[in-house]
């Protein structure tokens, strides 16, 4: 791993932390809070690729685990990570990795559709599979019940997939990093 890769990994870990500083937006009607932070894993995977993107989120999670209040709302420490929503937090690293893998696969013919599908698969399907399984075990409810409970958050995640797709395509034109890694 080159120095440049380490710096990129640190950069996206820091970016994910900064995204947590933006106050959450509360969706009308449902009242579900949407934070900008979960854009971090999507962007890390889509811009850095599987290996570096996944590692940058692992690095971010290590800093949260050692007690830095970097999760949105100034949360941090082991309590949040192994609590109820822990699966969604650990799932970020896998989510970033999967997004990176798919974006790398489509890199030479990346367009709005396959980029959006890649990010939605990693950022929603994979993430919710892990997060809901965690909730189901901790709360002793069925997987289906956990899925229903998490459904209101999908609106915010759909918006984030759209943003991450636009950003990923713009950065690919201006500053492509995945082909460089080649």
């Amino acid at each position, binding site marked *: 791993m080159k*120095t440049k890769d380490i710096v990129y990994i*640190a*950069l996206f870990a*820091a970016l994910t932390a900064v995204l947590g500083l933006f106050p959450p937006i509360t969706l009308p009607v449902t009242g579900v809070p949407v934070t900008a932070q979960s854009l971090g894993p999507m962007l890390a995977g889509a811009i850095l690729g599987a290996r570096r993107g996944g590692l940058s989120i692992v690095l971010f999670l290590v800093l949260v685990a050692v007690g830095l209040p970097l999760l949105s709302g100034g949360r941090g420490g082991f309590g949040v990570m192994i609590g109820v929503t822990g699966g969604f937090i650990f799932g970020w690293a896998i989510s970033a990795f999967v997004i990176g893998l798919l974006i790398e696969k489509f890199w030479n013919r990346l367009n709005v559709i396959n980029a959006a599908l890649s990010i939605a698969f990693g950022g929603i399907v994979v993430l919710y599979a892990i997060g809901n399984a965690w909730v189901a075990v901790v709360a002793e409810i069925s997987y289906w019940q956990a899925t229903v409970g998490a459904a209101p958050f999908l609106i915010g995640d759909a918006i984030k997939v759209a943003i991450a797709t636009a950003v990923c395509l713009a950065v690919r034109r201006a500053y492509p990093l995945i082909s460089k890694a080649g």
Partner: protein
Amino acid sequence: MIAGLYIDGTSALHRAAAGAKILAMIALGTGVFLIPDWPVVAFVLATVVLLYPVSGFGPRIIWAQIKPILWLLVIFFAVQMWLNDWQAAVLVVTRIAAIVMFASLVTLTTKTSDLLAALERAMLPLRPIGVNPEKVSLAISMVLRFIPVIATVASEIRDAQRARGLDRSIVAMVVPLIIRTLKMADDVADAIDARSFD
């Protein structure tokens, strides 16, 4: 520098080794799942809560740990009451509370620097499979340095985009933020290489 969640003190838990506390946390987290017996788990929770005053933390700090997950606990309690019975509801809620309260206690009584040192020691055996503890330490210190830099760049870009009437577009915020910081990252990497880090 970002302040950790550590609160200074001299209690036995404050003085205990970081690695030991993490192992205790893993043991407790596993234990309350292996023993699905609500009186036992309730006893564990009571013991954990008692450790707060023993470590010099008052009711305000205890409340601050439980408050963020309170609404989830209420929902889970209601769901279990509806699907099963009150014993199941008490078990689920006390189990989550015990894990979260103990994990928070570890965070409150352990300095971030001690946890990082424990992490570095834990990584040493991983060297043969390609994990380089020095590089991990470098990455960690860079993240801490980058956070205020990115926050500053973000506020500059917000001002610039506001002048263009684009301050409500998230994409118009994030794209320049990423490209500018990626350029900065390249310079940082060159500077590190110029000093022969590797």
